[in-house]
């Protein structure tokens, strides 16, 4: 709880600060370009529309968020600062690339384990094929059935037709 309070206080302070710096810098004439904004927005997911990267989302909310990134860039924030600001505000779901720490690291680790396991099993299987083939060379499947069985089968087959 206390974390949340301090977090929101810092974010409020930060945004106030941002506004202040924007005003302070208005004289200098520097504004972040669209490309700089998009480079950061690309790494974020739109917090409201599911599965849409922020740099291509056309909703009003996303336009505002891009404008916010522009303001932050203009007032000298770094890329990391902006991204962690968005994570603090809207949660980890705004990150396009999931983190590699904590529970989320599972999303990265499991596929690697799966590949390793799969390759190991495949190698074992191929080895097994080879061993058996050495052991059972003499054991080719006996295609020949006793003559009377074949005769019976053929008789029954004819009756079936």
């Amino acid at each position, binding site marked *: 709880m206390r974390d949340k309070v301090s977090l929101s206080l810092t974010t409020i302070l930060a945004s106030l600060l941002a506004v202040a710096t924007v005003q302070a810098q208005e004289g200098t004439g520097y504004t972040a370009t669209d490309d700089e904004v998009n480079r950061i927005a690309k790494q974020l997911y739109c917090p409201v529309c*599911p599965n849409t990267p922020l740099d291509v989302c056309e909703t009003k909310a996303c336009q505002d968020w891009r404008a916010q990134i522009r303001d932050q860039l203009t007032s000298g924030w770094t890329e990391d600062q902006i991204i962690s600001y968005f994570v603090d505000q809207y*949660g*980890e779901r705004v990150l396009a690339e999931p983190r590699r720490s904590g*529970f989320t690291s599972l*999303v990265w680790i*499991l596929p690697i384990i799966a*590949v390793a396991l799969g390759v190991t099993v495949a190698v074992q299987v191929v080895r097994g094929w080879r061993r058996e*083939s050495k052991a059972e060379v003499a054991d080719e499947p006996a295609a020949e059935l006793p003559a009377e069985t074949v005769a019976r089968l053929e008789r029954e087959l004819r009756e079936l037709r």
Partner: protein
Amino acid sequence: MIADIGLIALVLGFLLSGYATAASAYGGRRGRPLYVESARNAVLGAFGMLTLAVLSLVYSLVTLDFSRAYVADVSSRAMSAFLRATALWGGQEGSILFWAWIMVGFVAVVSLRKWDRDRELMPWVIAVAMATTTFFVGLSVFVSNPFAKLWLEQGAHELTPAVFRPENAVPYIPEDGQGLNPLLRHFGMIGHPPTTYVGFTGFVIPFAFAMAALITGRSSQDNWIQTTRRWTLLAWVFLSIGLILGGRWAYDVLGWGGFWGWDPVENAMLMPWLTGTAFVHSVMIQEKRGMLKVWNMILIILTYALVIFGTFITRTGLVSSVHAFAKSALGPAFFVFIGVTFLASMGLLFRRLDTLRADHELQGLLSRESVFLLQNVLFLAITFAVFWGTVFPMISELFTGTRISVGPPYYRKVTGPLFAGLVLLMGIAPVLAWRRQSVRLLLRSLAPPLLLSLLAGGLWAFGHRQHPGSALALWLLSFAILAVLFEFGKGMQARMRSLGESAMAALSRLLARNRRRYGGYLVHLGVVMIALAFVGDAFFKQETQGPLGQGESLNLAGYSLRYEGLRQYDGSDGREVLEATTSLYKDGRLLRQLMPRQDYFVVQQQPMTVPGVYSTLGEDVYVLLVGWEEIGLQSATFKIYVNPLINWAWLGGALLVLGTVVAAWPSSGATANAGYALRTAKRAAAMGQGD
């Protein structure tokens, strides 16, 4: 009135499907041909009934019977008659009915055609396939009925869709419908659902045969593999077409400059394609060498489960997504069905494990068999990575309470190397021998493509030092292409030398005589071409964005885009169009006028970004109008993408279809494959149950 007939037909179709499932299972179990015969008639009856239901829904859509909730939802006066008819698959209720209809149509075809060849299997094939059909028709009747009417309940603010009149409700008939989601009004999206559903339902047929083989205990014979080969290829190629059309749609309509976004719905479709592709390959080993029998069973079971899962994800929006237009109570029903069918089929597989022993063994570690197995492992690993990425947000939410996103960077990083491995195997596998391959011989036959591709990759690396990964990717792709081309060359050369044929004649005879082999190579070439587009997208895509006043230009990669003007007008189908005129220059020369647009559909409140595209084989220049000054229209903001090699995706798709047609085209029987298949057939005949 017509819709009521449709409703009655739908219910009858449900009853007939249920009866067909039960009767054929009973007939198969007790060996009563009469019941099986009756089940077959019920299948045909169900097909007739569902056809009637589909036709009456289409009729209601075209004639705008707005008393029906579904019609009011997806059809509207502004739409053309053709679009209204395609609205059949524009929403959830219609899609599910459509799915069930295609499915029962396939079962009808199978039960008419394959009856004599697989007498033992047929009752169970019908039972399994019709159980699936019954599930979907049941959904259509009970959960998501396309013929439900709109009702206004007393005191309620919202309309209730229901088949029967709720208490204290009066029927409500809106003046006009919502109309098809404007984003779906595109040839890609009109063709995408039908092809996808044909692909999805097509895979149910080999699954049904596999289950029938397990149930009857005839799984030691491989008949089901041969019977279903064409079904599998049909399903596979339609699923491929569906994926390509979907990609094309995204590229033309969604306005983010790409064709594949690793969206859950795209993933849901990709997963059965991946396992299906693995299946298409590994059945060859069973057919030729009698190995990997258990493995193939697992692959087809997985494919079936993923097909149902894919339909589920697309149609319920459980994994929320831009594509998931529909939300409803379908979730639990699907969940139970997938669980039950998966467990039942796996249980069946374990019970019959002893019938699935390999007939042949292997002599060397390096052989075509072992490489096929490795390829299968890679396909499954990719499937797992995609599945895991798709469901992980839900898992994370379930266990930690934090919802996270798994976006394109994850999929690119995890599946990229695995796909690269597949491309490498694609180059090697065709020259490998069955049973055993000596490394020396392998290197000798691979030397020319290997050296040439290394040269190409090296030159590329020298020219593009800033992207070392791209050199690796292009080396692999050129290796795969060259290896296939050398295979063609070898075959042609042999014919030309020994038979004195011209090059063209040699090529066409080569294709005609070895359809499966060379058709397969064509498919491989198509896949490599599609992969080229992905490599271009991953490494060389460029973009820039900026505001332009009239007469100003934006530059990117040697191109220059000049903003000429903006105009506003009303489109014919309820859209407001804001269209920019721009001129695209390269090196000072005018290439073309591009007209990127922002359309706004007033009724649906849906914006749509239509790109202006200058397209060549080398690259596309893709221009979006992303912002404008409301007053005076003097300045506007444009986004330009340069998308290299993207056209190769569509060309590769066409080649892939062509190759599959070559491989699957019915042959006259003279070239029926010899070897293992023939021996098995003989042995089966000797044992008294062949044809």
